[in-house]
């Protein structure tokens, strides 16, 4: 039973994290190659606080605010640089985060933070708590997509210049996407830290940023259901197939490459095409 609980908790946290990137990259079209830095910001902030005996639940808003604040700064950067330049800038932010954390003794440096206290609740309750947060954010995402905010996001993702010609202040909407997406990543980070009880700089490096982007793309950019599904499967796959441990990363990267090469619109795109095919047949 304990194994299933760990599995489901990991899954829920990954879904929350992947949906937070989907908000920025999927909805608003702002590619980010450094999203793990915000997971890390939330994780470190929350872990430092609970280690100084502050109740876990109180640290969640703090993690969200700190991560959201850094997200706001990256949002400002996204107003200066676009497309490929933005992708590389966000990648740089990821490296900067890891590089800075490595050198800070009070954050545990290279060794990271061990002995993070448990989140004052049973493992079952913590699992349920993570699932509830993931579900709430999934519902919020679905709502936003229907709202005028989602309407504007879609337009920005499509063509930012045209959005401006329609009199819409695209900058503010981009900032909003970055702040919401990174704040939620911060919350996911707080959950992550108290789930694994150990964090280090390498938990939030480039590979993690690519992995979460892979979840968004494999799921189907912008599709809440697709991304949640991809995050669920990709997060627990390594736990389920431990016998291929040595080839894990090769399997992953091979899958990602094959997805890009043959089905770049992801699971959501495949489902849509299958649906269209079945409908034409019947």
């Amino acid at each position, binding site marked *: 039973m304990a194994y299933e609980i760990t599995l489901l908790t990991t899954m829920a946290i990954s879904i929350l994290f992947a949906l937070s990137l989907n908000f920025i990259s999927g909805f608003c079209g702002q590619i980010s190659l450094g999203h793990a830095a915000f997971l890390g910001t939330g994780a470190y902030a929350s872990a430092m606080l609970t280690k100084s005996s502050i109740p876990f639940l109180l640290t969640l808003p703090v993690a969200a605010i700190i991560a959201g604040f850094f997200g706001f700064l990256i949002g400002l950067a996204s107003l200066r640089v676009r497309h490929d330049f933005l992708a590389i800038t966000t990648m740089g932010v990821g490296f900067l985060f890891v590089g800075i954390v490595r050198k800070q003794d009070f954050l545990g440096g290279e060794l990271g933070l061990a002995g993070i206290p448990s989140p004052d609740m049973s493992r079952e309750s913590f699992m349920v708590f993570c699932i509830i947060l993931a579900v709430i954010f999934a519902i919020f995402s679905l*709502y*936003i997509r*229907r*709202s*005028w*905010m989602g*309407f*504007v996001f*879609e*337009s920005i*993702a*499509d*063509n930012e*210049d*045209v*959005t*401006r*010609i*329609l*009199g*819409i*202040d*695209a900058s*503010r*909407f981009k900032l*909003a996407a970055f702040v919401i997406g990174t704040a939620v990543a911060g919350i996911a980070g707080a959950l992550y830290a108290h789930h694994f009880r150990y964090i280090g700089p390498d938990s939030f490096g480039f590979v993690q940023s690519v992995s979460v982007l892979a979840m968004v793309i494999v799921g189907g950019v912008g599709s809440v259901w697709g991304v949640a599904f991809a995050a669920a499967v990709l997060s627990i796959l390594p736990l389920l197939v431990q016998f291929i441990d040595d080839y894990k990363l090769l399997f992953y990267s091979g899958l990602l490459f094959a997805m890009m090469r043959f089905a770049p619109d992801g699971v959501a795109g495949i489902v849509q095409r299958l649906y269209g095919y079945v409908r034409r047949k019947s």
Partner: protein
Amino acid sequence: MMMSTSAPTPVLQVEPVLQVEPVLQVENVTVRFGGDTAVKNVSLTINQGELVGFIGPNGAGKTTLMRVITGIVKPQEGRVLLEGKDLAKSTINERVSAGMALAQQIVQPLHALSMLDNVALACGGAKTASVINAMFHTNREQERDKARDLLERVGLGEVVDALPATLPLGYLKRLEVARAMALEPKLLLLDEPLAGLNQAEAKGLADLILTLNKGGQTVLLIEHNLREVLRICPTLYVQDNGLPLAFGDADTVMKNPEVRSAYLGGQA
């Protein structure tokens, strides 16, 4: 609560023009690119309710002046005023919010959205003016109704649900115009809306522009199609090689020998 779809849309409202007020003022604008002067000391005033045709041979600097008005190009000298307000520090979306709307020469539909939603988004200015507002509103019906009316007016009533990528250029040119109209601008800037249309389509769209103007809409129309411009525009502005050549009543302008020589291949 009376929700009638046949309610007149604001763009249709006829406002009697009582006094002449400048909507757009371009004052002594000069633009240089490197060593070349693209626009040289141009001044231009468009008053409330006017329909001004802006013509000139290729390379006259028409597009550059349009870009100065919309804020894409910053002039080295001079300024642009909308209803008396200096726009020097305004970004393009601020200019649009302040009351100008642009139908671009090169069509740029939002490909992910239907024709209807392309226009509906432009109709939703009240909801997209603030991020918070946009977050708390989901209902698009009102805007879609308005968008449907606008698309019908430009002759696109049959394709409201189509995706732009599936439609020919002539349709997308009209989409540009409908989207600009949806912003209910004080000044409608049309950059070659007739280019690429066949004769019948061009005449139809020109008629629509004329109707809009009769309804009180102020329009600046950049256009190569002289035949249609001369048919609908009472006032003309001619520019050549970045220099203002003539401005005024269409008949007088077209009799101007400099204008004739610019168009007939100058013997200067």
